[in-house]
């Protein structure tokens, strides 16, 4: 995978994904190795981000690499009207690899095709966020020891949630996933993605109540429901509390159940869940560092 950009999760085959997850295990065991000492990585965040940017920068620094870049477009020459082409062409002369987040969709693909400097997409608008998808897969593998034959419950905004769509597509590369889709009627998973599930030999069921799936799933993947997604505000008021997870609801869940969330959470997971051993979302956020270390090492030809 040397020098190959990662723009969309679809750019990687199942074998390549498993390869990255394998390397991530090595970094989980030993995250501080000075393998990037002679490398400069550009971290270009044209719009703000907390978790993604900091976990990338932590991943780089723990491996001894140097980071250059900006944390939002207002502190760069973009503010002066510079084109993305010129920004990327210039910064690729200063760095070995570019990590970028940009509000326009397709911007990372465009940047990756300008020259030989590899690009990792850290989010291009509502389009793709492949490193989130990889860390989700890693967290599932870490807690279930497999990516085959699992019951995966996806809860919340399944219509607009970019991470949910990527995760469904990635899990569809594996065997016999049973998807349990829990969402308000207005925020159901798009038809095209449900067709994709079936076409790849998996199954799904749809629910409107989270309590219907808690006892029959291995992974409970929670997402935030945003008020502005509802055309009818009364509908939002009516459903908002049916997608909040409380500790008491987990009583009869499977022993191997683990709860994931791409974060940030607002109120959809009550804080009383945090101390439950089944809560895995902070480890999930930490896994973001190991997976990004694995990607950097792989793309720079160091693993």
């Amino acid at each position, binding site marked *: 995978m040397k020098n190959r950009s990662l723009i969309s999760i679809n750019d990687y085959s199942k074998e390549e994904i498993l390869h990255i997850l394998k390397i991530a295990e090595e970094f989980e065991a030993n995250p501080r190795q000075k393998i990037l000492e002679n490398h400069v990585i550009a971290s270009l965040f044209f719009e703000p981000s907390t978790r993604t940017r900091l976990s990338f920068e932590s991943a780089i620094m723990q491996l001894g690499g140097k980071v250059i870049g900006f944390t939002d477009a207002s502190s760069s020459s973009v503010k002066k009207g510079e084109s993305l082409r010129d920004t990327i062409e210039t910064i690729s002369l200063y760095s070995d690899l570019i990590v970028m987040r940009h509000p326009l*969709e397709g911007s990372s693909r465009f940047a990756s095709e300008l020259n030989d400097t590899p690009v990792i997409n850290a989010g291009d608008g509502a389009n793709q966020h492949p490193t989130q998808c990889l860390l989700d897969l890693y967290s599932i593998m870490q807690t279930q020891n497999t990516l085959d034959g699992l019951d995966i419950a996806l809860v919340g905004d399944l219509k607009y949630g970019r991470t949910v769509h990527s995760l469904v597509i990635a899990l569809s590369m594996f065997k016999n996933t049973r998807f349990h889709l829990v969402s308000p009627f207005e925020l159901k998973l798009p038809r095209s993605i449900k067709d994709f599930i079936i076409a790849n030999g998996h199954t799904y069921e749809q629910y409107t109540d989270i309590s219907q799936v808690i006892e029959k799933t291995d992974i409970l993947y929670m997402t935030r429901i945003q008020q502005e997604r509802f055309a009818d505000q009364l509908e939002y008021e009516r459903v908002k509390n049916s997608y909040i997870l409380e500790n008491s609801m987990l009583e009869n869940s499977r022993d191997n159940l683990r709860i994931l969330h791409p974060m940030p959470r607002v109120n959809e997971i009550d804080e009383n869940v945090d101390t439950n051993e089944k809560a895995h979302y902070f480890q999930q956020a930490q896994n973001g560092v190991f997976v990004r270390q694995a990607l950097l090492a792989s793309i720079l030809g160091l693993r």
Partner: protein
Amino acid sequence: MENKKTELKVSALENGTVIDHIPTGHVLQVMRILNLENFEDQIYFGANLDSKKYGKKGLIKVSNRFFEDLEINKISLVAPTATLIEIRNFDVTKKSGVTIPDTVEGFAKCINPKCITNHQKVATKFYVTDKDDLKMKCHYCEKITKKNDVEFL
């Protein structure tokens, strides 16, 4: 009494191209795609003409102008049924259909307002995913543009 003419007579082409069987309602769009609006030689065009095959059709006759395949395939996105007839010295020298290409580069607009191609100088590029009921996937933002949404740059 003189026979009343019921058809509009259009003079035959000596040299040029007839684009026949254009879906009715798309004639002006085809003119625009082929940049015939700025063409200086004679052009006849008609819409809502009777067609045995399609009921109604559009047609364009262009004098002294011939088209390369690449150029003409652009119109396949809105006029997949079009037939091209090349005429030289009043004789039909070539008759052909149009083909929807596998990739569409540089002349169609992406439907996604947040796509990079709609904000910066980036040539558009699509992969045609359905030729029967036209659907094109943007190389950049990965969104699908459908037949009725196709706009030309």
